[in-house]
């Protein structure tokens, strides 16, 4: 309930929830999701190169060594393959800025970004 109260309301928030559900199709985050991709917990304190036991990282992401912040995630989520060339499996990105920002608000709240 506390989390819900902290999240933005409106259509963008609903789309963010949908996008978040999309993330959880592969990633584990908060108390749910799958383990096909690295967990999202602690994302804002990590770099793209940080080792995550049990996962084979994308070489391109590994060598990019990007520090995940709201700014870098925003740019990454806009067009992941343009942000880091050579990535294999990944989302196609979220073009709508409002939806992306709502998802980032949600990620910050749920993953402790601030």
């Amino acid at each position: 309930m506390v989390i819900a109260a902290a999240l933005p309301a409106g259509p963008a928030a609903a789309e963010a929830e949908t996008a978040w559900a999309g993330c959880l199709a592969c990633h584990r985050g908060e108390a749910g999701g799958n383990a096909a991709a690295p967990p999202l917990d602690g994302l804002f304190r990590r770099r793209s190169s940080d080792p995550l036991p049990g996962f084979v990282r994308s070489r391109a992401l590994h060598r990019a060594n990007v520090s995940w912040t709201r700014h870098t995630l925003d740019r990454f989520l806009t067009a992941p393959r343009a942000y880091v060339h050579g990535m294999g499996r990944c989302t196609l990105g979220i073009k709508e800025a409002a939806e992306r920002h709502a998802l980032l608000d949600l990620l910050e709240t749920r993953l402790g970004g601030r």
Partner: protein
Amino acid sequence: MIARSVLRVPRSWAAAALLALAMMAASLPLLFALSWLSLQVPEDLVRQRVQAAFANGTLRDDLYLPLDRTRGVHQFNDCLILTMVLLRDEDPLHSAISPLYMRGTPPRQASVCPKLRELANGADRLDYEESYYHRYLNAYRVATAALLPALSVEGIRTLLKGGSYALLAAVLAVAVARRNWPLAGIATALALFYGVEYFGMSPSHAFADWVVYGLLLYAGFRNLMDLTPVRFTAVVVAYASLCIWFEFLTGAVPMGLAVLTGVLGLHAAARDDWVHGTHRLLLGGGLFLATVGSALLLKQAIAAQVFGSYVWDMFNSRVAAHTGTEKDTPAMVWATLTTQMGHIGLGDAGVGHAAILAGLGVLGLSYMWIMLATRRPTLRLGATAVLLSAGVVAGWYLALPSHSIRHAIFMVRLCAWPIAAGLAMAGLAVAHQCRHMAR
């Protein structure tokens, strides 16, 4: 006749502008081509050289060796450059543009020299974190790779340090032969106080130093005021290109700009056309900054095209980190500089302090003497340019305070230029006085 002369000037400057653009555009492709060629040096040979260097003590696990005259102070960057030579991307184009380097991975979170040693001794690359070094042009990697087939790491260090002293000796010899006392003062000050003894053997410093000494040598033979616009442009753009090629945030660019400004000032003072001198000073400084800035930004743009737009975020975050201030910055700058002053003070921090204070004193007093003793515009212009050249160093410290603090161990070298400028200014004052008395 008048119409022809009016037409002639713009045409030569148009040619100079076109040449500058062409040289700036060609600089990076040329470097990338050389970088690609340097990848032909076999990895096994590099590995053997590194193994031998660690075995005979040329390289050690310690990252900094203060006041070490044999290995140099700054082993960290030497190991980093050798790592860049050793590690190859699967795609040669990637390696030619931005080399790989290693970061530590738990539990083996060793720093750069131990990691290089482990890698040369056959450690698995998968045990390490690898990243691209996008933010510089990394020409020191190319030059070091080119030397490795012929020389050991120890041999490279000997060559670099010997070459540094040989170039400075040549500058001094030319200056004395031509009774160019300001230039003789610069060569002497750099030989004594630029820390050649402690940094002259390092690939991360020496190649850039050679570029600076090369300009001083050229300036001993030719007055830059007398060059045609095209040749002047070619010299300045080539010099600036080499400065940014070898810049590892070790001071090649600020030192390069300071030396160019000082040399142009001295050359302006030796001629009688102050308008021409002012023009050349502004043009030289502008061309230098434009060349350096365009090369750095173009490198990021090319890397972003090849590797992804994250390159810009990495670049911006580093700029923010280096230009940011930290708590108690002035005190920290002073404290860190103080501890490293021995590197430009013949091994003694007290000598370093005294040399800087004396240099600044001589610079200020000689400047005042010139301004009071003469009304010759070109001499005043030249003296002001030499004074401003010392200001480049202060400007660099103010522009990048965070970097200056963290890397004071080698950034202290820049403080040698005000000493050199002081001797150059004294040389200008003495030369003026001698000429005055001869009349």
